């Protein structure tokens, strides 16, 4: 983490998750364009990366920083609300 980022602000969000998620997404999207029946799964993978990040932060900080953990869970709850609410759109 950089020196000017106050302690705890990084939230332990792992570099490897987004770094790895980027390269997997790159490969998955390329595969999805060659085999169109797979394109939606490549898009779903991209959607999954931020969700996995929030889950990781919520779990990793549950004991040490409950407020942060709850904030990450709130972000996930917002997405869950959208997921439930989208049934109204269908």
């Amino acid at each position, binding site marked *: *983490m*950089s*020196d*000017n*980022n*106050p302690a*705890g*602000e*990084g*939230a*332990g*969000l792992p*570099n490897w998750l*987004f*770094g790895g*998620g*980027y390269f997997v*997404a*790159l490969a998955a*999207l*390329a595969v*999805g*364009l060659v085999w*169109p029946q797979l*394109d*939606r799964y*490549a*898009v779903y993978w*991209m*959607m999954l*990366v*931020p*969700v996995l990040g*929030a889950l990781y*932060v919520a779990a990793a900080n549950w004991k040490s920083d409950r407020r*942060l953990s709850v*904030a*990450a869970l*709130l*972000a996930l*709850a*917002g*997405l869950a*609300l*959208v*997921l439930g*609410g*989208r*049934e109204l*759109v*269908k």
Partner: protein
Amino acid sequence: MIFAVIGIGLLAGVLGAILGLGGGVVVVPALQAVLPLFGHPISITQAVAISQIGVLAVGLAGTAGYLRRGLVRARTGYLLSPYTIIGGALGSYLGLILPARVVATVFAALLLYSAYNLLRGLRRAEQEREPSRLVPPAMGFAGVMSGLLGIGGGTIQVPVMNLLAGVPIREAIATSTFIMGLTAVGNALIYSAGGLLDFRLAAAVGLGILVGARAGTSLAARISAGNLKLLFSLLLILTAGQMLWKYWA
């Protein structure tokens, strides 16, 4: 056609990395201009739906880079993202029900505002301060705009975090990019449920942006952003005019 859409993504990724303005501002008008040339006309709402995946790609590529440099304030991001996610869901729903003419008019206003911001330069505060009570509703508004227009919302989120929440400008840009990934997930879910998300075109835009954002980061060090800003501002004004003409003339 797919290669043209990948090209649009590449352009959005490169411009986003150099000017800090890409995503929907490039993708939505470009899809509407280019796809009809291939006999595949597209409504502004369909373009906005595809652009949500473009924004997600910007969020993914940007966050990966900013995390390496330690610039993402994830705690602030998670505390603010519920507002943008709920705002985004509302904006996406509005995008599904509002007439295309209304969406296009708001989009044209956004293009003009973005051009003005590019020419004027970013106002910034360098001192950290206690967050204002206006931050949650302002972030909610950023979410509404991102859902309605298929933009990342950085145009609103960065000044809000910097001027109202006291986050230094570089961290505000990084944290806004991080938040926009989470917001775009919710927005894309809504447009997908509305049957407007073309996964093939979205995958092509996403791929272009992932590559373009990386390439743009290394190009940014070698290209003078000054002339590019002026040129891109004029292009934004022209695009806004064309959009208004198309839907109102």
